[in-house]
């Protein structure tokens, strides 16, 4: 009997059929990845395996057997035994998935005691043991820490430790690395890999990132709109996809190794045009010198950005990469004047520039929070126009419609509200709003990080197009090295508030000077399973060095 047997699974949330007639099996010790774009039903499937839809109002059809338990028919008691004991789940967001008020060790011990008849003390010992197992240094001491005292990667490991505590036969990992930096992501994936090598645990990996799947599993199941699109061994599906959708998905994945040529060549051409047009030298439009920013005061003072100097030329794209917390957003906000630097200055067109300036705009990372949910998108886009003093409703409407169309939406969307748009569409609205101010510079703070690969590709293409047409200078902040490579002319690598390396894209990516840059590059998952194995070895070396 297989570890997991799913036949004809369907899940309905009211009107919506999230999963539709899905069947698959997973043998003991095997690993399967569910991949697909956001909303394709992956997490819904994962939850169904543990019977988490019970009592939520969702209708579940078909049959699900996990480790011999018929999840559909199981009693509460049986379900409780299954959950954690036979099959354990690792959730996506490591901070919010742990109780902020209790020590991590206690939380693991609590779960352990549900399944094993053990004393409090024995359970604590077990918690320390599994924490140690997932590579938390000094596990006995750290087990007394609370989640907020852990870094993101450590939290994710703690969650995995919790899953390991009862030695389940199946590990379900729902997007275990999406919230993590590439370097940390690599560590976690490596950990999963090692665990699988050492135990005979089955793994069901849920991810939208094809690269992550390539690194970790034997088999891939591609989902779309709740249905299976393609199912097979990882090397076959990723190497020689049969279905057009799979191919599309793969094509959209930005690659480190792909030549950046596609974008740079036409860009240069446009640049020349722009130069001719303005009859000005290809000078600096935005210059930052010695930027420094501190938060807090006294002992708690924290320097987020220190001594950063950079120059942005007309019409060029400057990529900024770095892991979470390295100061990218802080820097970006200082560039547009939303944050006042503690020291140093920003010059626009050679003149010192404080406060906001309509000519320098920003596109925000999170398409959800960057639009006011209570105002129609048209109103949001019209803001810069009105703030400038435009009063003629007709002209405003016309301009907004024009901008909406420019970013690939419809003029008629003026009266719609943000929640009526998808993430990609909202990001387009954000771009349209930035454009409304007729800027010369746009700082894009992780404009595509929140989007899935296909959407991401569309937005990136749009930005490139706009830049060419309007001669904009872009600062493109991202933690995804591949995306940055795709769009940038020059790239700066940030770490702990400093720029550790800066230069033309090809140089930085081709012959990285700084060890940190090298680490970053090695951490990027590869699509090809064999390449992935190579990378893993490379990372071990780097870590050992």
């Amino acid at each position, binding site marked *: 009997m297989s570890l997991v047997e799913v036949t004809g699974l369907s899940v309905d949330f009211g009107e919506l059929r999230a999963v539709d007639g899905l069947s698959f099996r997973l043998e003991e010790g095997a690993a399967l990845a569910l991949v697909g774009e956001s909303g394709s039903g992956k997490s819904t499937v994962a939850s169904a395996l543990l019977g988490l839809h019970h009592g939520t109002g969702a209708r579940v059809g078909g049959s699900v057997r996990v480790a011999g338990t018929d999840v559909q028919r199981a009693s509460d008691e049986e379900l409780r*035994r299954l959950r*954690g004991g036979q099959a354990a789940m690792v959730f996506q967001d490591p901070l919010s998935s742990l109780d902020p008020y209790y020590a991590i060790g206690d939380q693991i011990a609590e779960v352990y005691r549900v399944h094993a008849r053990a004393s409090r003390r024995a359970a604590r010992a077990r918690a320390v043991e599994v924490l140690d197992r997932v590579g938390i240094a000094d596990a006995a001491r750290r087990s007394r820490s609370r989640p907020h005292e852990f870094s993101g990667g450590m939290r994710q490991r703690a969650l995995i430790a919790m899953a390991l505590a009862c030695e389940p036969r199946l590990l379900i990992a729902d997007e275990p690395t999406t919230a993590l930096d590439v370097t940390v992501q690599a560590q976690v994936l490596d950990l999963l890999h090692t665990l699988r090598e050492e135990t005979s645990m089955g793994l069901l990996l849920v991810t939208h990132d094809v690269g992550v799947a390539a690194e970790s599993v034997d088999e891939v199941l591609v989902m779309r709109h709740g249905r299976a699109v393609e199912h097979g061994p990882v090397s076959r599906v990723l190497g020689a996809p049969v279905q057009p959708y799979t191919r599309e998905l793969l094509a959209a994945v930005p690659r480190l190794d792909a030549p950046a040529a596609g974008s740079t060549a036409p860009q240069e051409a446009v640049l020349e045009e722009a130069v001719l047009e303005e009859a000005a030298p290809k000078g600096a439009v935005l210059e930052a010198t010695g930027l420094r920013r501190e938060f807090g005061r006294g002992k708690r003072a924290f320097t987020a950005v220190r001594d950063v100097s950079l120059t942005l030329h007309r019409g060029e794209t400057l990529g900024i990469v770095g892991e979470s917390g390295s100061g990218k957003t802080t820097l970006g906000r200082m560039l547009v004047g939303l944050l006042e630097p503690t020291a140093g200055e920003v010059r626009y067109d050679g003149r010192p520039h404080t406060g906001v300036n309509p000519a320098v705009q920003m596109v925000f990372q999170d398409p959800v929070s960057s639009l006011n949910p209570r105002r129609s998108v048209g109103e949001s886009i019209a803001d810069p126009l009105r703030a400038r003093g435009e009063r003629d409703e007709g002209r405003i409407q016309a301009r907004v419609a024009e901008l909406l169309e420019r970013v690939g939406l419809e003029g008629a969307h003026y009266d719609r509200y943000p929640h009526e748009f998808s993430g990609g569409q909202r990001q387009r609205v954000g771009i349209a709003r930035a454009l409304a101010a007729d800027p010369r510079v746009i700082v894009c703070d992780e404009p595509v990080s929140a989007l899935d690969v296909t959407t991401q590709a569309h937005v990136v293409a749009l930005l490139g197009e706009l830049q060419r047409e309007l001669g904009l200078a872009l600062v493109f902040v991202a933690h995804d090295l591949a995306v940055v490579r795709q769009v940038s002319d020059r790239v700066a690598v940030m770490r702990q508030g400093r720029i550790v390396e800066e230069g033309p894209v090809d140089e930085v990516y081709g012959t990285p000077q700084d060890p940190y840059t090298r680490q970053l590059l090695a951490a990027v998952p590869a699509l090809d399973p064999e390449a992935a194995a190579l990378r893993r070895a490379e990372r071990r070396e780097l870590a050992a060095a």
Partner: protein
Amino acid sequence: MSGFPGFVLRRAVGAVVTLLAISVIVYVVFYVTPGNVAQITCGPRCSPEQVDQVARQLNLDDPLFLRYWHFLQGLVAGQDYSTGTSVQHCSAPCFGLSYQSDQQVTQLIWTKLPVSLSLVSGAMVLWLLLGVGTGVLSAWRRGRFSERVLTGVTLAGTATPVFVIGLVLMIVVCGELRLLPFPQYVALTDDPEQWAWNLLLPWLSLALIEAAAFARLTRASMLETLAEDHIRTFRAYGVGERSIVGRHALRGAFAPVIALNANNVGSAIGGAVLTETLFGLPGIGQELVHAVNVVDLPVVVGMVLVIGFFVVLANAVADVLYAVADRRVVLT
């Protein structure tokens, strides 16, 4: 400075500033309050000359700022006053002498404070038990009959003014059923058992007013916590519902309950004014109402400052508890 000592220092300075500001406000408000203080103090049939004498003796003819200045001096350096036959010293911090009774306000506070503290602290325990208990139950059994009943009871408490609850309780419990004695303050140090026995009714009436707020807050924050991701984690690991509600969800309600409690200490002292008046407990509130009625400014200032002090204190304690409860919070 940072860390706990720094926090204490900052809070202390803030409290002093706040309290001084309150005293200024009280001075100004009572300065413009109608009522001839000298006449009231002297008695209704005092002759104009006598009234003048009293006014002079109480420095009522001095301009406001000068009187306030004397008050500050008394606070810092103490103050001498004449009893007619001798001179007595009221040592710092001296809030002055009651116009009415010539007692030192500081002394008055010391005699009244234990009563009010007994009342409010006991009531606080009760309202926390009652409120949080109801809240937990109604979050757990939401939509069930028992929830509705409990919520109804606590709401009835909020909806009914304390003097109505108190009087009706007293008539029924003490007068008709004779279950409890008519409340009468007995000092804790004299007889702890009688102390509690006598205060039971006042505690209950005061607690009933506040309990509903706690019940609703507890319920809301528990429901909120129940919707959070980490609850899903524990569900997915087969942790029982009882433990999820009792351990994890309740823990989430802790911080807001502390915060509300800090705020409510203030309003409870306000509620205690009524409770003390009704039950005849010789506490701060009763004294304060009386002092306001006879425009006994030194007593009013003293009592208001004491109440303010406890409100400020409650807020500071709440902040500390908050930080202890949730170590992500930094004390500022």
